[in-house]
């Protein structure tokens, strides 16, 4: 993270006010605003938004809505959505400590316990990255109405969820009480308070999703090239009827992400196959031939909000070897995006200035 200087309000000089008045007058008179902007401030000129958007839609139209390529070096977007990110909060005042909190995952499947973590740095900005001496670190788990569901005490003793004693990372395990039913899924907040040895304190709120997905991946996958696209099917065991969503990222054998695909369907109880179709052009554009790896597979029950998210399955499947020539090199020509581009190009500035 980078420390930045806050930009507070400034006293406004007469010049901008006069310029604003002139701008308002010209706007009222219907004068062309871009000319005004350029005349008043020659430093910059905004590029045509309509033309930019149209060009980007034409580029995106090479792919269908359910499968898109990833640029070289991109992270796996399906995995990224299931990783809980740390959040830092500074206490009040110059000498206050800074607390960073995170859950072990965005979501947990019942009946698994939830891992919670925290560090406390400081005091103050000068203490950034330097662990504070913590006296107590506790959390209250609450639901969205603020009702207390349970409490936790974070420890740095190498026990339970804490991976290493004395490393400054405090951890706690939380088990949802047996009499609390999260339904399909519920968002819980964790109000965390750290008190340092010198009596300073800092608060933060973290959270996690806790749910009971109604289907699970069996671990069986199969692959084929169909109409020039890589199709990876995943077997799903449905325990209760509902709507289900599967997303996956495909990569090369070295684990470099190439693109993602998704599928959704309403399914009845029983065994089903959900099909991820990775549009063939993504392999042609990267010059990537098989075998490929399904780097991540994320199943969700999306019958209601919030959705119930299954645990992420990483490195789920390795496909057979497919020569590059079997994949299509033809753009998909996504009709919705092409139509959006055409409409923008018909607008003022739509073909660029």
């Amino acid at each position, binding site marked *: 993270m980078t420390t930045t200087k806050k930009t507070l309000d400034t006293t406004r000089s007469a010049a901008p006010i006069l310029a604003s008045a002139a701008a308002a007058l010209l706007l009222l008179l219907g004068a062309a605003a871009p000319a005004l902007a350029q005349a008043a401030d020659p430093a910059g000129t905004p590029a045509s938004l309509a033309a930019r958007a149209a060009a980007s839609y034409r580029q995106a139209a090479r792919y269908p809505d359910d499968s898109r390529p990833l640029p070289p070096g991109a992270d796996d977007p399906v995995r990224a959505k299931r990783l*809980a990110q740390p959040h830092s*909060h500074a206490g009040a005042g110059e000498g206050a400590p800074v607390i960073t909190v995170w859950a072990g995952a965005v979501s947990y499947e019942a009946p698994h316990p939830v891992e919670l973590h925290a560090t406390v740095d400081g005091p103050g900005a000068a203490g950034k990255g330097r662990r504070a001496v913590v006296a107590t670190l506790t959390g209250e788990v609450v639901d969205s109405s603020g009702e207390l569901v349970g409490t936790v005490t974070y420890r740095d003793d190498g026990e339970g969820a804490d991976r290493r004693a004395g490393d400054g990372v405090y951890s706690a395990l939380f088990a949802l009480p047996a009499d609390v039913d999260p339904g399909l899924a519920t968002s819980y907040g964790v109000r965390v308070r750290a008190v340092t040895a010198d009596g300073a304190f800092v608060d933060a709120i973290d959270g996690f999703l806790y749910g009971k997905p109604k289907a699970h991946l069996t671990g069986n996958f199969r692959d084929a090239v169909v109409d020039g696209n890589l199709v990876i099917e995943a077997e799903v065991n449905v325990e209760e009827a509902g709507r289900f969503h599967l997303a996956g990222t495909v990569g090369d054998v070295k684990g470099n992400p190439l693109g993602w695909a998704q599928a959704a369907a309403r399914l009845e109880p029983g065994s089903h196959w959900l099909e991820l179709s990775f549009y063939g052009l993504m392999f042609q554009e990267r010059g990537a031939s098989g075998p490929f790896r399904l780097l991540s597979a994320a199943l969700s029950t999306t019958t209601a909000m919030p959705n119930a998210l299954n645990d992420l399955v990483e490195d789920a499947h390795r496909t057979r070897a497919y020569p590059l020539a079997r994949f299509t090199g033809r753009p998909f020509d996504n009709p919705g995006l092409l139509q959006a581009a055409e409409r923008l190009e018909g607008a003022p500035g739509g073909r660029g200035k």
Partner: protein
Amino acid sequence: MRSRVLTGLLLAAAVALAAPQALAQPCFIFVHGKQTNTNTYTSYSAARSYWVSGSRDFVATATRNFTASYYVVGYNGTRPYWDAQAAGEVANEIVNATNGGNDGGGHHCALSYAQGGSFWVIAHSMGGPVMDFILGNDDASDPNYNFNGPYSTVASRISLAITLSGAHRGSEGADAVCGNGSFLCNFIAQFIQSCDDATWWLRSSDDVQVKTYSNAPARNVYLTGGYEAIFGASACLSGEDDGVVQYASIYACNGSATASYDNSNVCGNGAKQESSGFLNLDGAHENHDDIRNDSDRDTRRQVPDGIWTCGGSPCAPNTQVQSSMSSAQFVSILW
């Protein structure tokens, strides 16, 4: 009689000259932000007033004094962004706008979609995740396809969205209100007031973020936001902020929602919460209120991958590109 005919001919000529341009203008659809009560949902005047401060009016300025047509949406800003009275209501109203229907004040788009109209959505604050949810669930393969409204129709009809200090990754202000925020942080409560359902779903925690329940937006979401801090409140926000929403959220950055960014280093178009569809415009020295009501015509700065060009090339990040331009004026020069 002759004079009346002449007047009529002149009027017809004026209309004929003006009409093609007027008809080609996009229609602007305005989507407000978080509310502490249901006023904007139940009262059109409340929804319309959201964009006004005294004699300043975002809608008037952005549409170049109503040269372009507009439609003002009102939804229940106390409900979660994904709720039927939030995303569902907004989707239904946008479809109504694109059908040529009236908003609550009798205003309608000059051309319906069927007549060839184009539509730009302008969303402030929580309007950002509302639009993310709609545009990220428009396809049958998306997680929450047409969840509680005609999302697919919205996505097929609008050309783009522009968000003003959009809370795409939530707000640390919501964290302060829903957590045990310090006295200074609770200063933010003036703006957010209570940890209602909408606020709960605007926290920084990933389990409530719109990205967890959506795919990449089907139409581009262009990002601008404020960096005029508010004394007290901004002490609780990371990096640059507009007093309520921090830059990591305004610019829909990937990674931590509380990462500290400024105009020089805020995430570029390749490091967003989705792999495509979120694109930077610029940053404005406006606070969270100013940016929606045209009340502060101040400096604007380029951000990484921003829209401003200097001498034919993209301006360097943090370059001051305007000295007295509000976000309403900025929108008015984008079409």
